[in-house]
Protein backbone atom coordinates (compact mmCIF):
# COMPACT_ATOMS: atom_id res chain seq x y z
CA UNK A 1 0.00 0.00 0.00
CA UNK A 2 2.93 2.31 0.67
CA UNK A 3 4.36 2.01 -2.83
CA UNK A 4 1.44 3.61 -4.72
CA UNK A 5 1.23 6.19 -1.97
CA UNK A 6 4.85 7.15 -2.42
CA UNK A 7 4.78 7.38 -6.22
CA UNK A 8 1.20 8.38 -6.93
CA UNK A 9 -0.07 11.33 -8.93
CA UNK A 10 -3.22 13.25 -8.03
CA UNK A 11 -5.57 11.08 -10.15
CA UNK A 12 -4.36 7.93 -8.44
CA UNK A 13 -4.66 9.69 -5.10
CA UNK A 14 -8.29 10.47 -5.84
CA UNK A 15 -9.11 6.90 -6.96
CA UNK A 16 -7.31 4.83 -4.35
CA UNK A 17 -7.37 7.19 -1.41
CA UNK A 18 -10.31 9.55 -1.35
CA UNK A 19 -12.85 7.11 -2.79
CA UNK A 20 -11.67 4.33 -0.41
CA UNK A 21 -11.83 6.73 2.48
CA UNK A 22 -15.47 7.55 1.80
CA UNK A 23 -16.40 3.93 1.06
CA UNK A 24 -15.11 2.78 4.44
CA UNK A 25 -16.11 5.83 6.45
CA UNK A 26 -18.82 3.80 8.23
CA UNK A 27 -16.11 1.77 9.95
CA UNK A 28 -14.68 4.85 11.59
CA UNK A 29 -17.72 5.25 13.81
CA UNK A 30 -16.75 2.08 15.71
CA UNK A 31 -13.89 3.08 18.07
CA UNK A 32 -13.17 -0.46 19.23
CA UNK A 33 -12.85 -1.74 15.67
CA UNK A 34 -10.60 1.16 14.75
CA UNK A 35 -8.41 0.42 17.79
CA UNK A 36 -8.33 -3.27 16.83
CA UNK A 37 -6.86 -2.28 13.46
CA UNK A 38 -4.41 0.06 15.13
CA UNK A 39 -5.97 3.14 13.57
CA UNK A 40 -5.99 6.08 15.94
CA UNK A 41 -6.90 8.79 13.45
CA UNK A 42 -9.35 7.94 10.62
CA UNK A 43 -8.99 11.10 8.60
CA UNK A 44 -5.23 10.98 8.80
CA UNK A 45 -4.81 7.28 8.06
CA UNK A 46 -5.35 7.79 4.33
CA UNK A 47 -2.26 9.93 4.07
CA UNK A 48 1.29 8.62 3.87
CA UNK A 49 2.09 10.25 7.20
CA UNK A 50 -1.05 8.80 8.78
CA UNK A 51 -0.42 5.29 7.54
CA UNK A 52 3.11 5.27 8.88
CA UNK A 53 2.75 7.19 12.12
CA UNK A 54 -0.73 6.31 13.34
CA UNK A 55 -1.23 2.88 11.83
CA UNK A 56 2.04 1.02 11.18
CA UNK A 57 3.91 2.51 14.15
CA UNK A 58 0.90 1.94 16.34
CA UNK A 59 0.69 -1.82 15.93
CA UNK A 60 2.73 -3.49 13.22
CA UNK A 61 6.19 -2.13 13.95
CA UNK A 62 6.05 -3.10 17.67
CA UNK A 63 4.68 -6.51 16.67
CA UNK A 64 7.43 -7.15 14.11
CA UNK A 65 10.16 -5.93 16.45
CA UNK A 66 8.85 -8.13 19.29
CA UNK A 67 8.85 -11.18 16.98
CA UNK A 68 12.33 -10.43 15.60
CA UNK A 69 13.74 -9.89 19.11
CA UNK A 70 12.27 -13.13 20.45
CA UNK A 71 13.46 -15.17 17.43
CA UNK A 72 16.98 -13.75 17.60
CA UNK A 73 17.41 -13.90 21.37
CA UNK A 74 15.94 -17.40 21.62
CA UNK A 75 18.48 -18.50 19.04
CA UNK A 76 21.28 -17.07 21.21
CA UNK A 77 19.81 -18.06 24.57
CA UNK A 78 17.08 -20.44 25.69
CA UNK A 79 16.70 -22.27 22.35
CA UNK A 80 20.49 -22.66 22.17
CA UNK A 81 20.39 -24.21 25.66
CA UNK A 82 17.70 -26.65 24.60
CA UNK A 83 19.44 -27.75 21.39
CA UNK A 84 22.89 -27.94 23.01
CA UNK A 85 24.76 -25.22 21.08
CA UNK A 86 24.93 -23.08 24.24
CA UNK A 87 27.11 -25.70 25.96
CA UNK A 88 29.99 -24.66 23.71
CA UNK A 89 29.57 -20.98 24.63
CA UNK A 90 29.15 -21.82 28.32
CA UNK A 91 32.44 -23.73 28.36
CA UNK A 92 34.37 -20.62 27.29
CA UNK A 93 35.83 -18.39 30.01
CA UNK A 94 32.83 -16.08 30.11
CA UNK A 95 30.67 -15.34 33.13
CA UNK A 96 26.90 -15.76 33.02
CA UNK A 97 26.66 -12.06 33.78
CA UNK A 98 28.68 -11.04 30.74
CA UNK A 99 26.70 -13.42 28.51
CA UNK A 100 23.44 -11.93 29.82
CA UNK A 101 24.64 -8.33 29.40
CA UNK A 102 25.60 -9.09 25.80
CA UNK A 103 22.22 -10.69 25.07
CA UNK A 104 20.39 -7.77 26.71
CA UNK A 105 22.37 -5.25 24.68
CA UNK A 106 21.55 -7.13 21.47
CA UNK A 107 17.85 -7.30 22.43
CA UNK A 108 17.52 -3.55 22.94
CA UNK A 109 19.77 -2.41 20.09
CA UNK A 110 18.30 -4.88 17.60
CA UNK A 111 14.78 -3.48 18.13
CA UNK A 112 15.82 0.15 17.81
CA UNK A 113 18.02 -0.62 14.83
CA UNK A 114 15.26 -2.51 13.01
CA UNK A 115 12.90 0.44 13.45
CA UNK A 116 15.60 2.82 12.25
CA UNK A 117 16.44 0.74 9.16
CA UNK A 118 12.79 0.23 8.31
CA UNK A 119 11.89 3.91 8.52
CA UNK A 120 14.89 4.86 6.38
CA UNK A 121 13.84 2.36 3.74
CA UNK A 122 10.42 4.00 3.70
CA UNK A 123 11.78 7.52 3.74
CA UNK A 124 14.49 7.07 1.09
CA UNK A 125 12.13 7.00 -1.97
CA UNK A 126 10.20 9.96 -0.53
CA UNK A 127 13.39 12.00 -0.15
CA UNK A 128 14.93 10.91 -3.46
CA UNK A 129 11.98 10.96 -5.86
CA UNK A 130 9.63 13.38 -4.16
CA UNK A 131 5.92 12.70 -3.66
CA UNK A 132 2.73 14.69 -3.53
CA UNK A 133 2.77 14.05 0.21
CA UNK A 134 5.83 15.08 2.18
CA UNK A 135 7.15 13.85 5.51
CA UNK A 136 9.62 15.35 7.94
CA UNK A 137 12.58 13.17 8.79
CA UNK A 138 13.32 14.12 12.43
CA UNK A 139 9.73 13.72 13.72
CA UNK A 140 9.62 10.45 11.82
CA UNK A 141 12.72 9.28 13.71
CA UNK A 142 11.14 10.28 17.01
CA UNK A 143 8.00 8.31 16.20
CA UNK A 144 10.12 5.39 15.09
CA UNK A 145 12.06 5.43 18.37
CA UNK A 146 8.92 5.46 20.53
CA UNK A 147 7.31 2.71 18.46
CA UNK A 148 10.46 0.57 18.43
CA UNK A 149 10.92 0.87 22.19
CA UNK A 150 7.32 -0.32 22.56
CA UNK A 151 8.18 -3.39 20.49
CA UNK A 152 11.38 -3.89 22.48
CA UNK A 153 9.38 -4.11 25.75
CA UNK A 154 7.53 -7.19 24.47
CA UNK A 155 10.63 -8.76 22.93
CA UNK A 156 12.66 -8.16 26.08
CA UNK A 157 9.87 -9.55 28.26
CA UNK A 158 9.92 -12.77 26.21
CA UNK A 159 13.72 -12.89 26.33
CA UNK A 160 13.89 -12.28 30.08
CA UNK A 161 11.29 -14.92 30.96
CA UNK A 162 13.03 -17.46 28.70
CA UNK A 163 16.34 -16.53 30.35
CA UNK A 164 14.75 -16.94 33.77
CA UNK A 165 13.38 -20.39 33.03
CA UNK A 166 15.59 -21.72 30.21
CA UNK A 167 12.41 -22.56 28.31
CA UNK A 168 12.28 -20.94 24.85
CA UNK A 169 8.54 -21.41 24.33
CA UNK A 170 7.87 -19.17 27.34
CA UNK A 171 9.39 -16.28 25.39
CA UNK A 172 6.49 -16.55 22.96
CA UNK A 173 3.86 -17.18 25.63
CA UNK A 174 4.83 -14.16 27.73
CA UNK A 175 6.07 -11.77 25.02
CA UNK A 176 3.12 -12.27 22.70
CA UNK A 177 0.69 -12.81 25.59
CA UNK A 178 1.40 -9.44 27.16
CA UNK A 179 1.40 -7.82 23.72
CA UNK A 180 -2.09 -9.27 23.19
CA UNK A 181 -3.32 -8.11 26.60
CA UNK A 182 -1.99 -4.59 26.05
CA UNK A 183 -3.52 -4.51 22.59
CA UNK A 184 -6.90 -5.63 23.92
CA UNK A 185 -6.62 -2.97 26.63
CA UNK A 186 -5.98 -0.42 23.90
CA UNK A 187 -9.08 -1.62 22.03
CA UNK A 188 -11.43 -1.47 25.01
CA UNK A 189 -9.91 1.47 26.87
CA UNK A 190 -12.80 3.74 25.88
CA UNK A 191 -15.40 1.28 27.25
CA UNK A 192 -13.90 -0.18 30.41
CA UNK A 193 -12.06 1.47 33.31
CA UNK A 194 -9.80 -1.50 34.00
CA UNK A 195 -8.56 -1.55 30.40
CA UNK A 196 -8.35 2.22 30.46
CA UNK A 197 -6.08 2.03 33.51
CA UNK A 198 -3.79 -0.50 31.82
CA UNK A 199 -3.74 1.48 28.59
CA UNK A 200 -3.02 4.78 30.30
CA UNK A 201 -0.49 3.62 32.90
CA UNK A 202 1.15 0.35 31.87
CA UNK A 203 0.73 -0.30 28.17
CA UNK A 204 3.47 0.29 25.61
CA UNK A 205 0.74 0.84 23.01
CA UNK A 206 -0.86 3.43 25.28
CA UNK A 207 2.54 5.10 25.62
CA UNK A 208 2.85 5.58 21.86
CA UNK A 209 0.48 8.56 21.44
CA UNK A 210 1.44 10.52 18.34
CA UNK A 211 5.11 11.45 18.63
CA UNK A 212 5.29 12.48 14.95
CA UNK A 213 3.03 15.44 15.67
CA UNK A 214 3.58 15.98 19.37
CA UNK A 215 7.24 14.99 19.77
CA UNK A 216 8.59 12.55 22.32
CA UNK A 217 6.87 12.67 25.70
CA UNK A 218 9.10 12.15 28.74
CA UNK A 219 6.44 10.10 30.61
CA UNK A 220 5.96 7.75 27.67
CA UNK A 221 9.68 7.23 27.19
CA UNK A 222 10.13 6.69 30.91
CA UNK A 223 7.39 4.05 31.00
CA UNK A 224 8.84 1.90 28.20
CA UNK A 225 12.41 2.36 29.49
CA UNK A 226 11.37 1.30 33.01
CA UNK A 227 9.54 -1.73 31.63
CA UNK A 228 12.60 -2.78 29.61
CA UNK A 229 14.86 -2.33 32.65
CA UNK A 230 12.52 -4.24 34.97
CA UNK A 231 12.12 -7.15 32.56
CA UNK A 232 15.88 -7.37 32.02
CA UNK A 233 16.38 -7.43 35.78
CA UNK A 234 14.00 -10.39 36.17
CA UNK A 235 15.88 -12.33 33.49
CA UNK A 236 19.23 -11.45 35.07
CA UNK A 237 18.34 -12.95 38.44
CA UNK A 238 17.00 -16.09 36.84
CA UNK A 239 19.79 -16.67 34.32
CA UNK A 240 22.71 -16.07 36.68
CA UNK A 241 21.36 -18.28 39.47
CA UNK A 242 19.82 -21.31 37.76
CA UNK A 243 21.09 -24.52 36.22
CA UNK A 244 21.28 -24.45 32.43
CA UNK A 245 18.48 -26.30 30.65
CA UNK A 246 20.75 -28.64 28.68
CA UNK A 247 19.36 -31.67 26.88
Amino acid sequence: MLVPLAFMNETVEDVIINQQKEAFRGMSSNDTFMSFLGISDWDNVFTLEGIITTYLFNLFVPLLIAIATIVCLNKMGAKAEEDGTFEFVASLPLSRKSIYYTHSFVAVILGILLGFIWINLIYAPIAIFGTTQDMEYVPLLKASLQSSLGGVTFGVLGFSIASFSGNSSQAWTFGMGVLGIEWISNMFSSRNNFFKFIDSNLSSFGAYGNPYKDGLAFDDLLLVTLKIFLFLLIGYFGFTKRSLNLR
Partner: protein
Amino acid sequence: MIEIKNLTMRYKNGKGVGDINISVDNGEVKGLLGPNGAGKSTTMRSLMGFLIPSKGTLSVEGINTIENPVEAKKIIGYLPGDPQLPQNLNSKSLFKLGADMRSQSTDYAMELAEKFELEVDKTLKELSKGNRQKVALILVLLHKPKALILDEPTSGLDPFHQRTFFEIVKEFANNGAAILLSSHIISEVEKVANSFAVLKNGKAIYDETYDVFKNNAQSNGKDLEDAFFEFYERN
Protein backbone atom coordinates in the same frame (compact mmCIF):
# COMPACT_ATOMS: atom_id res chain seq x y z
CA MET B 1 43.86 -31.42 40.26
CA ILE B 2 40.12 -31.99 39.90
CA GLU B 3 38.17 -32.34 43.14
CA ILE B 4 34.52 -33.21 43.57
CA LYS B 5 33.46 -33.31 47.21
CA ASN B 6 30.01 -34.37 48.43
CA LEU B 7 28.34 -33.35 45.16
CA THR B 8 24.55 -33.53 45.25
CA MET B 9 22.60 -32.22 42.29
CA ARG B 10 18.93 -33.07 41.79
CA TYR B 11 16.73 -32.30 38.78
CA LYS B 12 13.06 -31.39 39.21
CA ASN B 13 12.09 -35.03 38.57
CA GLY B 14 14.22 -36.14 41.53
CA LYS B 15 16.93 -37.75 39.41
CA GLY B 16 20.52 -36.57 39.50
CA VAL B 17 23.53 -37.44 41.62
CA GLY B 18 23.99 -37.68 45.38
CA ASP B 19 27.08 -37.36 47.57
CA ILE B 20 29.67 -37.94 44.85
CA ASN B 21 33.33 -37.77 45.88
CA ILE B 22 35.91 -38.04 43.12
CA SER B 23 39.37 -36.58 42.78
CA VAL B 24 41.82 -36.64 39.89
CA ASP B 25 45.48 -35.80 40.54
CA ASN B 26 47.66 -33.91 38.13
CA GLY B 27 49.04 -36.36 35.60
CA GLU B 28 46.24 -38.84 36.31
CA VAL B 29 43.63 -40.02 33.81
CA LYS B 30 40.45 -41.17 35.54
CA GLY B 31 37.65 -42.97 33.75
CA LEU B 32 34.09 -42.26 34.82
CA LEU B 33 32.03 -45.32 34.02
CA GLY B 34 28.36 -46.11 34.09
CA PRO B 35 25.39 -46.74 31.81
CA ASN B 36 23.08 -44.04 30.42
CA GLY B 37 21.42 -42.09 33.22
CA ALA B 38 24.01 -43.09 35.84
CA GLY B 39 24.98 -39.43 36.40
CA LYS B 40 28.22 -39.06 34.43
CA SER B 41 27.14 -36.02 32.42
CA THR B 42 25.42 -34.48 35.44
CA THR B 43 28.65 -34.79 37.43
CA MET B 44 30.69 -33.21 34.64
CA ARG B 45 28.18 -30.42 33.98
CA SER B 46 28.07 -29.63 37.70
CA LEU B 47 31.84 -29.47 37.72
CA MET B 48 31.66 -26.97 34.84
CA GLY B 49 29.12 -24.84 36.75
CA PHE B 50 26.37 -25.46 34.17
CA LEU B 51 24.22 -27.18 36.78
CA ILE B 52 23.92 -25.66 40.24
CA PRO B 53 24.42 -28.32 42.91
CA SER B 54 22.38 -28.26 46.13
CA LYS B 55 25.46 -29.45 48.02
CA GLY B 56 29.14 -29.95 47.44
CA THR B 57 32.44 -28.32 46.61
CA LEU B 58 33.85 -28.52 43.10
CA SER B 59 37.27 -27.28 42.17
CA VAL B 60 39.98 -27.45 39.53
CA GLU B 61 43.54 -26.57 40.54
CA GLY B 62 42.08 -25.17 43.76
CA ILE B 63 39.70 -22.82 41.91
CA ASN B 64 36.05 -23.27 42.91
CA THR B 65 34.20 -23.79 39.62
CA ILE B 66 30.86 -22.52 40.93
CA GLU B 67 32.14 -19.41 42.70
CA ASN B 68 34.85 -18.51 40.20
CA PRO B 69 33.76 -20.04 36.88
CA VAL B 70 35.65 -17.69 34.56
CA GLU B 71 39.06 -18.39 36.13
CA ALA B 72 38.28 -22.10 36.30
CA LYS B 73 37.20 -22.31 32.65
CA LYS B 74 40.44 -20.67 31.56
CA ILE B 75 42.30 -23.81 32.60
CA ILE B 76 39.64 -26.41 31.75
CA GLY B 77 38.99 -28.10 28.45
CA TYR B 78 35.44 -29.46 28.42
CA LEU B 79 33.92 -31.74 25.80
CA PRO B 80 30.13 -32.21 26.02
CA GLY B 81 28.60 -35.64 25.46
CA ASP B 82 26.90 -34.46 22.29
CA PRO B 83 28.81 -31.40 21.06
CA GLN B 84 26.65 -29.07 18.99
CA LEU B 85 28.69 -26.53 17.03
CA PRO B 86 27.66 -23.86 14.51
CA GLN B 87 27.09 -25.82 11.30
CA ASN B 88 27.75 -23.00 8.84
CA LEU B 89 31.29 -22.23 9.98
CA ASN B 90 34.35 -24.12 8.82
CA SER B 91 36.73 -25.72 11.29
CA LYS B 92 39.41 -23.10 10.72
CA SER B 93 37.03 -20.25 11.63
CA LEU B 94 35.84 -22.13 14.69
CA PHE B 95 39.41 -22.69 15.86
CA LYS B 96 40.09 -18.98 15.33
CA LEU B 97 36.97 -18.10 17.34
CA GLY B 98 37.85 -20.52 20.15
CA ALA B 99 41.48 -19.35 20.21
CA ASP B 100 40.51 -15.65 20.21
CA MET B 101 38.11 -16.18 23.10
CA ARG B 102 41.00 -17.63 25.07
CA SER B 103 43.66 -15.20 23.76
CA GLN B 104 45.57 -18.03 22.14
CA SER B 105 46.98 -18.66 18.67
CA THR B 106 45.58 -21.39 16.43
CA ASP B 107 48.98 -23.05 15.94
CA TYR B 108 48.30 -25.97 18.25
CA ALA B 109 44.77 -26.38 16.83
CA MET B 110 46.20 -26.66 13.31
CA GLU B 111 48.82 -29.12 14.52
CA LEU B 112 46.07 -31.29 16.03
CA ALA B 113 43.97 -30.96 12.86
CA GLU B 114 46.89 -32.38 10.92
CA LYS B 115 47.23 -35.29 13.37
CA PHE B 116 43.51 -36.02 13.01
CA GLU B 117 43.69 -35.61 9.19
CA LEU B 118 40.91 -33.03 9.33
CA GLU B 119 39.90 -30.89 6.34
CA VAL B 120 39.76 -27.52 8.04
CA ASP B 121 38.21 -25.58 5.15
CA LYS B 122 34.98 -27.58 5.08
CA THR B 123 31.97 -26.30 6.97
CA LEU B 124 30.76 -28.46 9.82
CA LYS B 125 27.63 -29.47 7.99
CA GLU B 126 29.84 -30.95 5.25
CA LEU B 127 31.73 -33.08 7.78
CA SER B 128 30.84 -36.57 9.01
CA LYS B 129 29.89 -37.15 12.68
CA GLY B 130 33.37 -38.45 13.42
CA ASN B 131 35.03 -35.42 11.84
CA ARG B 132 32.74 -33.06 13.76
CA GLN B 133 33.83 -34.86 16.93
CA LYS B 134 37.45 -34.19 15.96
CA VAL B 135 36.66 -30.47 15.58
CA ALA B 136 35.07 -30.44 19.02
CA LEU B 137 38.06 -32.24 20.52
CA ILE B 138 40.49 -29.76 18.97
CA LEU B 139 38.43 -26.84 20.35
CA VAL B 140 38.73 -28.41 23.79
CA LEU B 141 42.49 -28.89 23.54
CA LEU B 142 43.68 -25.79 21.68
CA HIS B 143 44.55 -23.78 24.80
CA LYS B 144 46.48 -26.71 26.36
CA PRO B 145 44.28 -26.87 29.46
CA LYS B 146 45.50 -28.08 32.86
CA ALA B 147 42.35 -30.11 33.36
CA LEU B 148 40.31 -32.03 30.82
CA ILE B 149 36.71 -33.01 31.38
CA LEU B 150 35.66 -35.23 28.49
CA ASP B 151 32.18 -36.68 28.20
CA GLU B 152 32.33 -39.74 25.95
CA PRO B 153 35.16 -38.29 23.85
CA THR B 154 35.61 -41.17 21.42
CA SER B 155 31.97 -41.17 20.29
CA GLY B 156 31.95 -41.32 16.49
CA LEU B 157 35.74 -41.62 16.11
CA ASP B 158 37.10 -44.49 14.02
CA PRO B 159 39.62 -46.83 15.72
CA PHE B 160 42.58 -45.14 14.00
CA HIS B 161 41.68 -41.71 15.29
CA GLN B 162 40.65 -43.11 18.68
CA ARG B 163 44.25 -44.23 18.92
CA THR B 164 45.50 -40.76 17.95
CA PHE B 165 43.17 -39.26 20.54
CA PHE B 166 44.40 -41.55 23.33
CA GLU B 167 48.00 -40.66 22.45
CA ILE B 168 47.15 -36.98 22.80
CA VAL B 169 45.40 -37.63 26.14
CA LYS B 170 48.49 -39.48 27.41
CA GLU B 171 50.67 -36.59 26.26
CA PHE B 172 48.50 -34.15 28.24
CA ALA B 173 48.69 -36.40 31.31
CA ASN B 174 52.47 -36.65 30.97
CA ASN B 175 52.57 -32.86 30.95
CA GLY B 176 50.71 -32.82 34.27
CA ALA B 177 47.06 -32.34 33.26
CA ALA B 178 44.30 -33.92 35.37
CA ILE B 179 41.89 -35.77 33.08
CA LEU B 180 38.38 -37.02 33.82
CA LEU B 181 36.93 -39.01 30.95
CA SER B 182 33.53 -40.69 30.83
CA SER B 183 32.61 -43.83 28.97
CA HIS B 184 30.16 -46.72 28.96
CA ILE B 185 32.85 -49.31 28.36
CA ILE B 186 35.71 -50.34 30.64
CA SER B 187 37.83 -51.68 27.76
CA GLU B 188 37.92 -48.17 26.26
CA VAL B 189 38.95 -46.55 29.53
CA GLU B 190 41.54 -49.28 30.02
CA LYS B 191 43.54 -47.96 27.06
CA VAL B 192 44.29 -44.65 28.70
CA ALA B 193 43.16 -44.42 32.34
CA ASN B 194 45.18 -45.05 35.50
CA SER B 195 42.05 -45.30 37.62
CA PHE B 196 38.30 -45.25 37.31
CA ALA B 197 35.17 -44.39 39.23
CA VAL B 198 31.84 -46.09 38.66
CA LEU B 199 28.47 -44.39 38.96
CA LYS B 200 25.17 -46.21 39.41
CA ASN B 201 21.83 -44.45 39.81
CA GLY B 202 23.55 -41.19 40.75
CA LYS B 203 25.86 -42.73 43.37
CA ALA B 204 29.58 -43.46 43.17
CA ILE B 205 29.97 -47.18 43.88
CA TYR B 206 33.67 -47.58 43.09
CA ASP B 207 36.76 -45.38 42.89
CA GLU B 208 40.07 -47.21 42.64
CA THR B 209 43.11 -47.67 40.45
CA TYR B 210 42.69 -49.68 37.31
CA ASP B 211 45.37 -52.18 38.46
CA VAL B 212 43.51 -53.05 41.68
CA PHE B 213 40.38 -53.92 39.73
CA LYS B 214 42.35 -55.84 37.11
CA ASN B 215 44.21 -57.90 39.72
CA ASN B 216 40.96 -58.77 41.49
CA ALA B 217 39.42 -59.82 38.18
CA GLN B 218 42.44 -61.97 37.32
CA SER B 219 42.51 -63.63 40.76
CA ASN B 220 38.86 -64.61 40.19
CA GLY B 221 39.70 -65.93 36.72
CA LYS B 222 37.56 -63.36 34.92
CA ASP B 223 38.33 -61.01 32.07
CA LEU B 224 37.97 -57.29 32.75
CA GLU B 225 34.67 -56.79 30.94
CA ASP B 226 32.93 -59.73 32.68
CA ALA B 227 34.33 -58.72 36.07
CA PHE B 228 33.04 -55.19 35.55
CA PHE B 229 29.50 -56.24 34.63
CA GLU B 230 29.39 -58.71 37.52
CA PHE B 231 30.59 -56.00 39.91
CA TYR B 232 28.03 -53.54 38.57
CA GLU B 233 25.14 -55.99 38.96
CA ARG B 234 26.24 -56.93 42.48
CA ASN B 235 26.39 -53.34 43.79
